[in-house]
């Protein structure tokens, strides 16, 4: 039996070996430094070494399969600890109009910039809320490429928790908190899909619809009482039902219009008549335009949440503005700003990127917050910070 298995493995390698073409190993080395503007305290920043292997099976241009894997080693100088993490790592099979992939993946359906209403598949690393990072999760993905129509279906066998903001970005809970566990059972599997129609209208029109069933990545908090006194809180990632729609239109003259909306209900609440505190709507509408070499992005953001039984619904409006310009082949400048009208708070973030040499890039970013202490961004006023990153890619 053992000999047969060995023979089978060797045979497979001998047969598949020549079929493996264009395996490429690449990687990056990144050193980061950050500091809090007000206090001068250093911002904990990991030093990263990443390695990546990419390859195709069969013809280079029309392969039968493709694979990619990334491993990241992070060293935290603040705690002198090293961690190893698997990033995106997947295998993709191509069969006619179908792409079938398995493994750690990031699914990005959203077309907007600062906020992503229809990106519901991946949890987000909010360790540094100004730089949210989608976390790859194990999932199966089937994409149908039907000319103008693309159907993208995903299935996640188990749920992965997000990384929530910690101090000084989140207030410490006055009560002890425990997270409700999410068992890796079929009941807790997530699934959904995005359908996109790309029409050749004007300079291009994309219309999409999203549906997803899984769990929210923002926990709800339920106090636990001993008698009349709350003694602890339970944080739960509620079951989520999500529907969304998106549209991108290039009407011409360099203009791009986009809008994206996502409606979600929690705890298996009805979509049309949700229970109190169990429904929310997020929408982003905006434009992109190139004015004399400066790429301008403007977006309006609306956030609605159905109130809990005791309170009313909440409605918040925000505006996002981003301007970026490339000066020559080495220097890129960018400035981003978010303003929340309720409470008049916001963030301004100028950024600079400079290519020192092939594969060697320097990035600098500053984040300033303003507003009252009881507002979304004003609460972070003392967290205004600067970051520098030097990255060598090979």
């Amino acid at each position, binding site marked *: 039996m053992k000999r047969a298995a060995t023979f089978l493995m060797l045979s497979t390698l001998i047969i598949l070996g020549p079929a493996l073409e264009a395996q490429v190993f690449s990687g990056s080395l990144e050193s980061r430094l950050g500091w809090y503007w007000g206090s001068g305290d250093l911002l904990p920043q990991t030093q990263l070494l990443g390695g990546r292997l990419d390859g195709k099976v069969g013809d280079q241009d029309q392969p039968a399969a493709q694979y990619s894997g990334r491993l990241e080693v992070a060293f935290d100088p603040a705690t002198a600890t090293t961690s190893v993490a698997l990033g995106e790592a997947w295998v993709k099979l191509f069969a006619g109009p179908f792409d079938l992939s398995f493994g750690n993946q990031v699914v990005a359906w*959203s077309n907007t910039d600062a906020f992503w209403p229809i990106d519901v598949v991946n949890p987000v690393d909010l360790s540094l809320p100004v730089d949210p990072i989608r976390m790859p999760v194990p999932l199966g993905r089937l994409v149908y490429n039907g000319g103008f129509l693309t159907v993208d279906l995903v299935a996640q066998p188990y749920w992965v928790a997000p990384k929530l903001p910690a101090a000084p970005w989140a207030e410490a809970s006055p009560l002890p908190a425990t997270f409700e566990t999410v068992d890796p059972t079929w009941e807790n599997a997530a699934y959904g899909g995005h359908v996109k129609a790309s029409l050749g209208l004007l300079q291009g029109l*994309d219309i999409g619809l999203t549906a997803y069933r899984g769990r929210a990545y923002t926990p709800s908090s339920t106090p636990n009482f001993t008698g009349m006194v709350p003694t602890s809180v339970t944080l739960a990632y509620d079951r989520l039902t999500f529907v969304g729609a998106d549209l991108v239109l290039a009407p011409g003259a*360099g203009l791009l219009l986009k809008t994206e909306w996502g409606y979600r209900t929690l705890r298996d609440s009805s979509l049309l008549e949700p229970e109190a505190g169990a429904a929310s709507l997020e929408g982003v509408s905006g434009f992109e335009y190139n004015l004399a*070499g400066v790429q301008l992005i403007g977006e309006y953001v609306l956030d609605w949440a159905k109130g809990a039984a005791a309170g009313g619904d909440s409605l918040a409006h925000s505006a996002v503005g981003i301007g970026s310009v490339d000066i020559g*082949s080495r220097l890129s400048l960018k400035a981003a700003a978010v303003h929340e009208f309720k409470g008049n708070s916001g963030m301004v973030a100028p950024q600079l990127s400079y290519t020192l040499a092939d594969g060697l890039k320097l990035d600098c970013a500053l984040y300033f917050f303003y507003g009252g202490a009881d507002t979304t961004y004003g609460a972070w006023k003392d967290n205004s910070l600067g970051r520098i990153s030097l990255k060598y890619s090979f």
Partner: protein
Amino acid sequence: MNSYGCLRKSLATAMVAATLALLAASPLQAQAALSGQEVMDKVYNSPKPKGSVLTMAMVITKNGKSLSRTLTTWTTGDVAKGETEKTLMKFLSPADVKGSGFLNLKKPDGATESLLWLPALGKVRRLGSGASDQDQAFFGSDFTNRDINGFVRADFAYAVDSFAGGIYAVTATPKKALGYEKLVYHVDSSTWKYAKIDYWRGGKLAKSQTVAYDKVQGYDMPTRILMSSASGSSTELSFTGYKLDQELGDQYFTERFLKQ
């Protein structure tokens, strides 16, 4: 042979020589009589491969320091023939841009669809395409997007400045705002390919493009294109791989192929 016979022979020889000289001279004379439009018609109609896959290295030099990129482009279609011109580019190096790609579909009616693939974000972004986008630098180089995408023949009025040594100097004056005051093409009449283009802006020479050609599978293909800017910077495109007359179906010009 008597003197009359000698005279007849000399006269015949002279007539043949004169006829031959006339025959040799007439193509040059006919070429010299070509108008600017006729010269550029020959340039645009010169044999081109049906579909092609080209690999090239791009070196951008400024102040003595260089940045390099390698990329592969897939192209097919000809707007002049009523077809959609399809171009897909993928960067092969350096590592920080490897895998990024750009898809451009230029339709006969002038509408252009553009998509950009950013592997780091995992997204394909649709781009708005307008006149100001066309005048932007092509990935930080001395070429603009318009220089790379090609000019539309009908957007210019052409006039021959000179014809010497088999080279036509043709001034192309744009009929609408196209980012340049005029272009001056230097066209080799033996191949009907331009060896040089001077780009004028604001009364001054802004930059010059020189092109070297070689025969590849029967076509005169560029092997090296150098764009030198008056500011001192330069961008050199060196072609390292050619696959010509390829049957490139629609599957090569899709988001799916862009992301592979």
